[in-house]
């Protein structure tokens, strides 16, 4: 069966990270969402994949070009204008023959186990179109699904109002027939309406997903995604070429990539992940749910906690980064601190451009975009978004002018 991954969207709520990449190219626990999906597809026995690209398409094209794993046939198709999900699906129309079924995947979702395999199994036994459904932590922003006793979906209500009751929601994984394309055209390219039409006709079965599932919409959800993946790990691994100096303490599940260097006195509290070629300085403390990308540098005495640091970033000595996401190629100077709570323990608000989001979290740090430079000695307010490329000067209390 062919799989289609939708990866064209802008995902503007995910700024500053979606400014510079499509959502599926965000890495958690050392691997991009897209790579995660592709691996799960392979394990589900699916080798022919079409990725619909648009926003920063080059990131995905380069990634696919550099992927050497055998047995996978991956092609990119471009969605030229931003026409929504239905329009993105229609980009693949020519690749699917009449009568053929395909697996449709939203690229911004993440699961701990293989949801594609589960959807395939449901399709294999029902022999009719299937939508994966799940129970998310909150349901306001999803399509709510109503079932009958035979697992047939008989109603889909988009973003229900007025009721505080959660239902099963669409998990962004479907097995659909080629005839779905004409349904989309009839419904003015609306995915919602097309699925509703199918449900009304009784043509759509549910495949229930009870494991972890996350639709990554906001930057702090990257931390949740990271936790889901790290929690799914059951064993540690340390690459043969990694260098571990004396007095390195490790607890729990720790993964260390090739050629990483862990200097003496470092403490690694699992679950955590250190990418290939990264350097962890002396006496640094890497606390649980920290994922450090490849070729990063963490200075002497740095404390990291519940954070995602993307590739090629540096964190200067004696800094603290917690409950934060740091982009690629970020340079954080010595002695910087991401403050991660309000003094009165009120829930953190995140200001992204002009919109203020109230999170439900009492502890949350900063979201630092790619290529940012933060000079030494800066203290960052909880919930701060730093846009890509921004240069923040060092913060001195004593200068040559005083």
């Amino acid at each position: 069966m062919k799989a289609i991954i939708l990866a064209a969207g802008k995902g503007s709520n995910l700024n500053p990270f979606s400014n510079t990449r499509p959502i599926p190219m965000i890495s958690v626990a050392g691997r991009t969402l897209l790579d995660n999906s592709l691996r799960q597809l392979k394990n589900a026995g699916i080798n022919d994949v079409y990725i619909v690209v648009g926003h920063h398409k080059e990131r995905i094209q380069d990634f696919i070009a550099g992927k050497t794993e055998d047995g996978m046939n991956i092609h990119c198709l471009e969605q030229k204008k931003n026409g929504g999900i239905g329009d993105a699906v229609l980009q693949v129309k020519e690749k699917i023959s009449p009568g053929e079924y395909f697996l449709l995947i939203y690229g911004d979702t993440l699961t701990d186990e293989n949801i594609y395999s589960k959807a395939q199994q449901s399709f294999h036994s029902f022999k009719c179109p299937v939508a994966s459904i799940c129970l998310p932590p909150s349901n306001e922003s999803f399509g709510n699904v109503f079932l009958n006793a035979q697992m047939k979906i008989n109603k889909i209500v988009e973003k229900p109002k007025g009721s505080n009751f959660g239902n099963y929601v669409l998990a962004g994984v479907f097995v659909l027939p080629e005839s779905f394309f004409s349904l989309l055209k009839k419904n003015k390219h609306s995915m919602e309406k097309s699925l509703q039409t199918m449900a009304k006709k009784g043509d759509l079965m549910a495949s229930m997903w009870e494991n972890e599932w996350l639709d990554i919409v906001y930057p702090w959800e990257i931390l949740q995604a990271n936790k889901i993946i790290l929690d799914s790990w059951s064993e540690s691994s340390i690459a043969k070429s990694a260098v571990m100096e004396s007095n390195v303490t490790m607890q729990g599940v720790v993964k260390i990539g090739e050629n990483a260097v862990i200097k003496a006195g470092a403490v690694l509290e699992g679950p955590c992940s250190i990418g290939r070629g990264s350097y962890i300085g002396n006496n640094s403390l890497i606390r649980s749910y920290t994922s450090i990308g490849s070729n990063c540098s963490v200075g002497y005495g740095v404390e990291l906690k519940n954070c995602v640091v993307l590739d090629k970033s540096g964190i200067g000595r004696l800094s603290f980064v917690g409950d934060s996401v740091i982009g690629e190629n970020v340079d954080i100077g010595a002695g910087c601190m991401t403050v991660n709570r309000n003094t009165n323990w009120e829930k953190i608000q995140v200001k992204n451009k002009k919109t203020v989001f109230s999170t439900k979290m009492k502890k949350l740090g900063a979201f630092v975009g790619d290529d940012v430079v933060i000079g030494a000695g800066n203290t960052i307010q909880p919930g701060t978004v730093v846009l890509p490329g921004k240069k923040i000067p060092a913060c001195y209390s004593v200068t040559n002018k005083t």
Partner: protein
Amino acid sequence: MCGINGVVGLSNISEVLFQGIRNLEYRGYDSCGIALMNKNNLVVRKNTGGVEEFFRKGDILSAKGKTGIAHTRWATHGKVTYDNTHPFTSCDGAFALVHNGIISNYRFLRDGLIGEGHTFRSETDTEVIPHLIEKYYKKYSSVEKALVKTLNTLEGTFAIALISIYHPDQIFCARRESPLMLGIGDELKFVGSDFNAFIDFTKNAVIIEDNEYAILTRDSYVVKSFLTQEEIAKSITKIEWDSETAKKGGYPHYMLKEIYEQPQTINTVLELDSSLMDEVVDMIDTSDRAYFVGVGTTFYVAKFSEYLFSSLTDRFIPALSSDEFVSLAKVDRKTLVLTLSQSGETFDTISALKFAKSKSAKTAAIVNVMGSSISRLVDKVILQGSGPEICVISTKAAFAQIITLTILALKLSLKTKKIKQREYDASINSIRELPEVIQNILNERSGFIHRIANNYSKVKNWLYLGKGIYYPVALESALKMKEVAYVHAEGMPGGFLKHGTLAMIDQDVNSIVFIPPRSDKKLYESTMHSVEEIRARSGFVLGVHFDEGSKNKNLFSEEIILPNVKPIVAPFLQLVIGQLLAYFTAISLKRNIDKPRSLAKSVTVG
């Protein structure tokens, strides 16, 4: 777009071939065909139409063979006709082949072959392939060499599977751009357009890539490049697949499936033989003394019935746990012992029954499994017909028993003129409406209950409280929590609080209170009193109630609100909530849902 598959094995594989090609039907189906190697003869059958129809009408399964290939077609070149249906054979009938893809130079090849004397029967592009192989076989006297030469002559895309009389126990296959996979079973080897062709038999797949061909026998396979003829080492991909899924019908666990099947089991109970129920009602009515006997969940079903009969009829029928029965019960000829068991094999209940029979008591039972020991042991048995219950935790079977007992109580009440026909009909109607109400709860509340279960899965101690008939609801719901989530939960009558238990209430002990509908005024008020007692000690209360839009908002720490129903069916809805809460807590704690520790489906030991 077509689907192809092939199977080679030791014994007849036509059934396996059929299953495989049926699972590939999603790739297109306007015609279908197979070729089987019967000893050294090629048997080819084909027809237009779907796979199922083809196999049934053509009596295809009667064809025998140890090697075979099959095809389901979606026409691209040539109309949907018998002649255009795969497999295609060579002029001499030595080769049969199925193909998925498009041969772009087929006109050129075909003209050449016709010039050389080959006869074509179809309009398809595919038919050139067996003829080419025949031609090159004559030249090289080797099927493999002929195949490689042919593959290098073809332009376009293909995935093919080939059998020939020269190697009756081999399948040859090859790929360029069209999908192809091998399935590596112990006794059987497969080739297919994708894993759907063989996943019911093996999860080990080898992915064939472009410009590769493979030769399969029952015991081995080899993959080579048709460009260089060099052998290629392939790794086996183990496809993640849970073979139980089909039986679970899309549900992640049997427990959830069986919870969702409860609306259906209510309908089944409503259709049970009414005269048989009347006979059991007569047995109760004519007895001097009667007991409900069960153990574990069915003890709570019995307890529930104790309340039911006391409220609906003039009879007090105590519930006894099977294992305590011998110590407690007074049994004689005029005693009726009504036992409850899902499996009908429960050791403790059988012991109780044997004791009762030794005292010449009358016996009856409600069981789910036909022909089970208990069903054979008793004078009268009601088979509840809930269908197999596979999850070790009983949900739908216990539920159906409670419904059955409610109907028995109503019948007795009517018979003894405690209620009028009109009231009886109204109550039965409420039960008839129950499936839809429960279906709505499952649809509309499960997400919310899931969220509550996630938020409180770390709670170590729960008190489950209820009064009146809601007390057995609390007991049964607490047992569900213990059984599947391994969380300590204590079921207790609400009135117990002020007799000591209140001392335990603090922020570490959470309570769930099953609150009756407001129309059940007395019970409602005294239950709410318990809630206030806990809240006064800043205890956590999860209220399960029927008071939508009430002003009690701040009374509960969390609440699950149920739709307003008649008091007689209200406890059933609470039971469903108890099941879902236990299930989702177990999910959150990553428990082994369908096979929890320390519990077997039917406890057959003492």
